């Protein structure tokens, strides 16, 4: 059985487009990335799956159950971490987490303590006194305390420092090893590359591609910026070059292909500076889809 299945899922807010014909599946036990720039439709898709908003048409199923009709059953097995976390005033973290646990009808106190220990979260602190990062930790604990079979993460790392991001990714990998499926939405490609098995790229409401991570890596392009001491560099000598911009002795282009071939060509020139970086999402879209 698939953890998530959508077919031609469409959501319009009045006349404004939310998502259009979104179709994908997440296999059980898979970590599935959902990548796209802001406003692409990632959150709309997630909120439709969680029945926070109602689809205009199409189908959305989690563990074979209809997301709207069977939302009560589905939500027993789903843990959700939104991009921004908001909770009630005048509550300590432990009170909020106990309230959250009470919806699942089981004792989650040991699990809460375990997760809080891993994330170094002070359970006795009032939530409104917490930093953004600590509030996010409360969100992570409340999303995982009932051992969900599907974890939905909507841009979850904002507010977490790099060390805590690593701890968080380890935590998600552990949950995945224990059998949880994960839908991981982000606009940061490197995050998705670190964690996911497959990735869907969404743009302006449409899914433009779904790829295995290995395939995406093989097809990954780089933003190359180089400066020559003298002479002329002709990027057209390389295959897989796009979006070439020349500014005096400085050249910038997107390159998809064997890095060895790139370096081999560069070695024939008097290069004073070179920078090979991950492209932005927009650049990837330009490279592949325009």
């Amino acid at each position, binding site marked *: 059985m698939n953890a998530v299945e959508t077919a031609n899922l469409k959501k319009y807010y009045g006349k404004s487009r939310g998502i259009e014909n979104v179709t994908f599946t997440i296999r059980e036990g898979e970590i599935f990335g959902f990548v796209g720039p802001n406003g692409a439709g990632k*959150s709309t898709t997630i909120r439709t799956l969680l029945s926070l908003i109602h689809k205009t048409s199409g189908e959305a199923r989690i563990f074979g159950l209809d997301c709207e009709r069977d939302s009560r059953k589905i*939500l027993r097995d789903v843990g959700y971490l939104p991009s921004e976390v908001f909770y009630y005033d005048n509550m300590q973290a432990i009170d909020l987490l106990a309230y*959250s646990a009470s919806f699942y009808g089981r004792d989650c106190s040991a699990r809460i303590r375990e997760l809080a220990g891993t994330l170094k979260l002070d359970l006795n602190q009032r939530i409104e006194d917490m930093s953004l990062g600590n509030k996010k930790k409360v969100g992570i604990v409340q999303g995982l305390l009932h051992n969900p079979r599907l974890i939905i993460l909507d841009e979850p790392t904002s507010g977490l420092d790099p060390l805590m991001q690593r701890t968080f990714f380890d935590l998600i990998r552990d949950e995945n090893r224990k059998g949880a499926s994960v839908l991981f939405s982000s606009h940061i490609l490197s995050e998705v590359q670190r964690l996911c098995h497959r990735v869907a790229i969404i743009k302006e409401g449409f899914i433009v591609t779904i790829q295995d991570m290995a395939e995406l890596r093989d097809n990954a392009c780089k933003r190359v910026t180089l400066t020559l001491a003298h002479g002329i560099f002709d990027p057209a000598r390389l295959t897989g070059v796009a979006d070439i911009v020349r500014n005096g002795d400085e050249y910038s282009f997107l390159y998809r292909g064997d890095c060895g071939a790139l370096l081999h060509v560069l070695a024939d020139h008097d290069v004073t500076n070179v920078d090979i970086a991950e492209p932005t999402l927009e650049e990837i879209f330009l490279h592949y889809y325009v």
Partner: protein
Amino acid sequence: MTIFRFETRRQLRNTVTWTAVIVVVLWLMLYGFYPLVVNSRTAMEEMLASFPPGVLAAFGINLDDVFAFAGFSRMVYLYDALLGAIMATGTAAAIFAREKQNKSSDFLLTKPLSRSEIFVQKLAACLTLIGVLNIPYVAVYTASYLHYTGSVTRPDLLTILCLFLMQLVFVSFGIAAAVFMRRVRSSSATGVSIGMFAFLLSMVYSLSEKDVFRFISPLSYFNPDAVFKTGRYDMPSVATAIVLMLGLTAAAYVRFTTADVPA
């Protein structure tokens, strides 16, 4: 019953405070002020006679019966009704707008409960808290009837229950305000605004002397005056109250259970 417990616990202190205020006002008026009024009847009559009749009517004072216990208690009711309306509206608004105010809708609506269950549990919390207030209110009121008149008749009982029934109407106002307003900055302010507006409408009704105005005065739907005159509630007003109460609650339910929750 998770949400019911959570909401009643969160609102309990507020309810206890309101209960204390309303019951103390009732107690002070009936046990402290009423004996003074009766004992200084002549001076009071002279003083009140100097006021324009419209002003007395607006404040619920009727010279013909203000010195009888039933008449005096009806005047007191107007002020307890104002407080009770503010309390009921504010409590319902606080409970139903809690997630909107804290932006925590995502937290609650991704828990394994249907929106219908959430609505019903929140409604049950509102009614329980109104009930909590009314237990001491009814006790003090009943005791005062026994103290001054020696018995509690059926019309007396209907008078005593006016506050509770009127508060049910204002609970539906609070729920509707919380569910339909895009933003609810303060549930207390919502309660005060709606309560004061209802008080103004009741003044308009009292001053106008036009019977049809009773339909726009929610504080008067369960009116001790009507009980005093006829021995029962004014049935058209009760029907209006029921239609409003059920209509607003049903509309809020539909909205609550079907609306998209924006990010």
